[in-house]
């Protein structure tokens, strides 16, 4: 009896914060992060949805200087804008060809997964392109493709082909830029797979070897299933990266020739902030469409994470 009342007295003395400490602490720790993130990320997403319903040149406030046009921006985009179509198609090309990085990265990882002298340095050097900024990668590849003194034309000239102006050809420019993007992305996938290969279950591999599995069969039935987490991350990051492409296009082709290498992200920037005028509403509508496309993959990632969480809590 006495101990219990003593307990109650100490509780009362402790004050409100102390009694609710466990419930309050996480919120106190979360507040700074949530405030910043809401202000700069969550809110702007909703604002962009709103702006996309207006005709607005970005001057003054949206409420007073913008003109509400409903879904007119979207209607124009989807029915009467050829540049939008080209950009959307190019996004699709990026998405598909960027995925080449995953098998390419696996191939290099398999090639480098040996224990010879100096292999660590080789691994670092292969990873090198990922560390360099996309701006420098873009410059490097622009010069690589240069019709006059680029290494690319040096090589194909050596084999006997006529020089090609890759970035000056509307049919080829996008592929040229994508190839530049695949270079660092492959390096990224390679490092994921190298780490994955490092933790492959040796006993399973030896057991499979005793059963006579080797080469492609071993890779497909024994190794790849164990590399699934690495493949998942590689897939998500590569897809998001492909839809986010901007830097390389801005540096290598500036969307050209004749707008043939634009993607949605670049076209949106051009419409909103470049010399072609400040069409913020129209730009926001393009951004919203890109966002919705990306939400498919973000949703997939969240769903997978949710499944993992549920499994971990059981």
């Amino acid at each position, binding site marked *: 009896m006495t101990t219990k009342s003593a307990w109650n007295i100490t509780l009362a003395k402790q004050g409100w914060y102390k009694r609710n*400490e466990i419930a309050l602490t*996480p*919120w106190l*720790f*979360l507040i700074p*992060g949530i405030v*910043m*993130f809401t202000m*700069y*990320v969550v*809110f*702007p*997403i909703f*604002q*962009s949805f709103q702006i996309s319903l207006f005709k607005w040149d970005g001057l003054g406030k949206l409420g007073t200087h913008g003109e509400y046009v409903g879904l007119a921006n979207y209607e124009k985009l989807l029915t009467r804008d050829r540049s939008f179509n080209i950009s959307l198609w190019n996004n699709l090309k990026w998405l598909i060809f960027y995925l080449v990085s995953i098998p390419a990265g696996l191939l*290099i990882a398999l090639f480098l*997964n*040996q*224990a010879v002298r100096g292999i660590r340095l*080789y691994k*670092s*050097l292969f990873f*090198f*392109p990922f560390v*360099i*900024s996309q*701006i420098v990668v873009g*410059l490097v*590849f622009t*010069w690589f493709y240069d019709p006059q*003194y680029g*290494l690319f034309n*040096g090589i194909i000239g050596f084999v006997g082909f006529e020089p090609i102006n890759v970035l000056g050809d509307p049919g080829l420019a996008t592929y040229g830029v994508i190839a530049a993007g695949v*270079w660092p992305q492959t390096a*990224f996938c390679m*490092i*994921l797979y190298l*780490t*994955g290969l490092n*933790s492959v279950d040796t006993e399973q*591999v030896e057991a499979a070897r005793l059963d006579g599995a080797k080469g492609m069969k071993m890779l497909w039935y*024994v*190794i790849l299933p164990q590399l699934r*987490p690495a493949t998942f991350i590689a897939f998500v990051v590569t897809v998001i990266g492909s839809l*986010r492409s*901007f830097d390389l296009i*801005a540096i290598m082709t500036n969307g050209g020739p004749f707008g043939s290498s634009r993607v949605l*992200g670049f076209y949106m*920037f051009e419409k*909103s*902030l470049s010399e072609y005028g400040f069409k913020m509403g129209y*730009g926001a509508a393009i*951004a919203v469409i*890109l*966002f919705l496309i*990306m939400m498919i*993959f*973000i949703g997939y990632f969240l769903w997978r994470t*949710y499944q993992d*969480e549920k499994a971990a809590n059981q």
Partner: protein
Amino acid sequence: MFPRPIEKSSRAWQLGYQAILPLVMLLWLAPLLAVALFSIRPDSDFIIGNYWGWPSSFEMIKNYGMVFGSAMPRYIMNSFMITIPTVIGAVALSCMTGFALGVYRFRGNLLIFFMFIAGNFVPFQILMVPVRDLTLDLGLYNTKTGLVLFHIAFQTGFCTLFMRNFIKALPYELIEAARVEGIAEWRIFWYVVLPLMKPAIAALSVLIFTFIWNDYFWAIVLTQGENTQPVTAGITSFNAQYRAMYHLMSAGSIIAALPPVLMFFLMQKHFIAGLTLGAVK
């Protein structure tokens, strides 16, 4: 180990592998090596069309000296002044959010966690117009502070994902033991959890340094001119100034790319640990 270790195959295979390694690497890095070669050539080589032959003279000091005599050092300084505060800010915020989401069970925990993850993946373009407006309203347009604040906020998404998963994997008994001792919650964060997070902090710092150093999009959206712009944006003005002077543009690009590269080679272990978290179960 897969593929089968090369030591177990014949001597010829081993020698073949050792010989082919440097060749494949040269091929892989060819575009970069070409630029490195350009950057030590004299400009006369470009006039006489000697692009791929032996350089007629080595002008490394002269070319790189020209780069350091231009606005490039300013841009590099700006990059540091943007990158370092961002790293500190984003890591500090995410240590806290990661702790809150990784240690406590409360309603909305997973929802908040998912908000951070989803936000970290959105396309920049959907944030562009509102963030530019917000920065203008705060009077921070064309300042390093404006850029840093945005970077901190945005990177908090990725960093929270990283930190929360790291903390979740720590032994929970440590925290329970501390609670039994009657230690205040904030002290548990400071004296129990934070010391254990050192490897995660190191890994994240290196990663965020590289991400922010290499940012181009926000640099051109939120800043202009050599007083504020980082080197990724500065290199384009540099190139406009030295148009068609390939030896200088190459040297400039190499200088711009150097800090993250050094960072990577010095902190390789942490860098790769950060990048591959979650890639292995």
